[in-house]
């Protein structure tokens, strides 16, 4: 047993930290810290900065422009970027489509598409969920019918995150309606400029616009846009869901939010004294910190096992459940800490001196409501429990 990172890994952490200190633009950092939505240019700027070091495609091999990191390095990078209030990477191109193409794409697809992900030419979004196919993704109905050298796509996708900034979408579509649900699905790439596509915003509970609905009406896509074989889409989708989940627990975000909560509870006066001195509130913080220390080590154990190939299958589900619950708990405590002052609608653009709460906590209620998504998206925590249960109770 040795819970220490190696000297090399610690040196790598220092390198990442120094880079972030020197290169993360302050205006972007401030938006992340204040829970202000980032605009398209913010994401593009940040991706371009990371790419100056080949750090954007964190899971990609060196020959395709990635850094060639191992699991520990990716973990350290994820944790440090979260701690520094760097933006989350827009995962759809670099963390999702990239690895899929590297495993299933043709040489031509790799050569054409991968460089455009890294240099920011393309912004990919994801067409998986449908109104009738969420947790039960395999029941998706969007149809792609072969017509000569094209497919003709009809249907609707939803919850398409940041689709408003995208020019491309990768979709799961049904190519064989007669086959068993999982066996008639294909994975296809679509240019959002193609006639017949309409994207509509979905406004979220706290008022933000980060997801969309995408409607496909007789959209013609060349057969060469298929990834893998026809009707092999489910295998690809499953690969995507199990591939590279080192940061799924979000421990970096939790460590960061815990530290910020402690500062807030120190600054906030409740019942005549700093909130942190209230033993009932301090207990909540302390228990969350204990849970967080445990998930950090669980996360490292999983990393270590997957580095040696001993991982047994449901770890990513476990990390997702526990990790999201801890982040949501911290969001909830931060909201609670503000008391009555949590009330203002953050989009009100109040004068800077209007409220007396710290700038980075002003949107705490909005952030809390928005982050209820964490236990819903990417396979809801209920679905993750089904995955674990299937494993625990099998044969």
């Amino acid at each position, binding site marked *: 047993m040795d819970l220490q990172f190696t000297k090399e890994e610690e040196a790598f952490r220092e390198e990442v930290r120094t880079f972030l200190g020197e290169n993360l633009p302050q205006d972007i950092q401030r938006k992340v810290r204040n829970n202000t939505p980032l605009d398209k240019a913010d994401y593009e700027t940040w991706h371009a900065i990371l790419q100056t070091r080949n750090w954007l495609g964190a899971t990609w091999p060196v020959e395709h422009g990635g850094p060639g990191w191992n699991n520990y390095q990716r973990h350290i990078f994820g944790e440090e970027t979260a701690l520094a209030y760097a933006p989350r990477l827009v995962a759809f191109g670099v963390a999702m489509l990239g690895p899929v193409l590297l495993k299933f794409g043709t040489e031509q697809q790799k050569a054409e598409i991968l460089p455009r992900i890294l240099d920011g030419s393309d912004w990919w979004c994801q067409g998986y969920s449908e109104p009738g196919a969420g947790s039960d993704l395999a029941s998706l109905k969007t149809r792609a019918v072969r017509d000569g050298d094209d497919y003709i796509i009809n249907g609707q996708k939803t919850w398409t995150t940041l689709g408003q900034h995208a020019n491309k979408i990768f979709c799961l579509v049904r190519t064989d309606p007669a086959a068993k649900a999982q066996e008639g699905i294909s994975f296809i790439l679509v240019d959002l400029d193609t006639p017949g596509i309409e994207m509509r915003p979905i406004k979220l*509970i706290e008022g933000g616009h980060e997801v969309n609905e995408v409607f496909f009406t007789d959209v013609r896509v060349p057969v060469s846009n298929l990834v893998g074989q026809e009707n092999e889409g489910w295998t690809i989708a499953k690969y995507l869901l199990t591939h590279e989940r080192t940061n799924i627990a979000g421990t970096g975000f939790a460590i960061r939010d815990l530290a910020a909560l402690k500062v807030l509870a120190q600054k906030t006066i*409740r*019942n*005549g004294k700093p909130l942190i001195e209230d033993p009932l509130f301090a207990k909540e913080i302390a228990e969350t910190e204990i849970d967080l220390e445990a998930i950090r080590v669980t996360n490292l154990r999983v990393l270590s096992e997957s580095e040696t190939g001993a991982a047994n299958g449901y770890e990513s589900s476990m990390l997702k459940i526990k990790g999201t619950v801890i982040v949501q708990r911290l969001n909830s405590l931060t*909201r609670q800490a503000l*008391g009555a002052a949590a009330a203002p609608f953050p989009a009100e653009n109040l004068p800077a001196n209007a409220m007396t709460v710290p700038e980075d906590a002003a949107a705490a*209620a*909005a952030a809390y409501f928005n982050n*209820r998504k964490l236990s819903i998206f990417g396979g809801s925590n209920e679905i993750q429990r089904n995955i674990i249960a299937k494993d625990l109770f099998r044969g």
Partner: protein
Amino acid sequence: MDFNLSEDRRMLSDTLRRYLAEQYDIETRNQAAYHAPFYAPAKYTELADLGVIGAFVSESAGGFGGEGFDITTVFEELGRALCPEPMLATLMSVRVLADLKQSTLVDEIVTGQKRPALAVFEPEAGENLCDIQATFSDGKLTGRKSVVYGAPNADLILVVAKEGDQIGLYLTEAAETVDYAMIDGGGAAEVILDDTPATCLSNDAQAALEAALDAGRLGLCAEAVGAMDVMLGMTIDYMKQRQQFGRSIAVFQALQHRVVDMAIEIEQCRSISVLAASHLGAAHSAKYVAMAKNLVGRTVVKFSEEVIQLHGGIGMTWEYPGAHYAKRLTMIDHQLGDALTQLHKVMQAA
């Protein structure tokens, strides 16, 4: 023992439920709740005409109710309809004014001619009147009041301030306010007092204010019970209708049990609110109100999280009414002292 509403209260409840159901479809509600002045002035007046405000004070003070169960009857219906009208501010204001024998102001409020807001809490005095720092001297108020419910567009701002060691109540129509919508709808404001001229209504208002705040807390508890009732129905309907894996998700026992727990928690909240209502204004009133607000505060947060989770992505959307109920319920815990603050009171009273 009799847990039924009196005939008068049942009639008020029925009338109000019908009126609110007709008047506040979710689009109308959201339009009013999220846009200045963050309520619907014409509907506020109609609610006054229906007797809603009169129910908040006793006959001797110019109303026709004034007991705990009058307050819970009205607020449960407001909660069901997710009504954005600033009745919490009105309830607390009219109660404190009635207690201080300000009969002219009470009459103007009960009839809906004047709408009040009660400016009590401050950035560093969010729970207890004794922490208040705003001062009154030589006919002028100085200090700052934070998150004053219903202040946008209010006719009367009632300000709690200290004159020496005494906590008094002062009326101003000249305060500078910074208005905003709240995240769950409805309006509030920061009230900035800088030698602001004001009239003294009482320089010894602490007891009346504590009682008015407790009436407000009781109202919030009942509002939460009404809102949770509606949300439980919405959640069950959605689960029955939502098909995944070839069947309605309502058949999954793991999900059913969570809904069962929600239903039980509503009844617990209803019971503790009934208890608090029955004791309002009597000995130990404050303790029972604190118990109710603590249990409701603990329940609403978990309840709202479960409602959103059981709806999946739909529960996260602005378009879905349940999302606005969930926000309102959660933010009830932020009003007039959260579960933690109430728990301290119960621990000290025990």
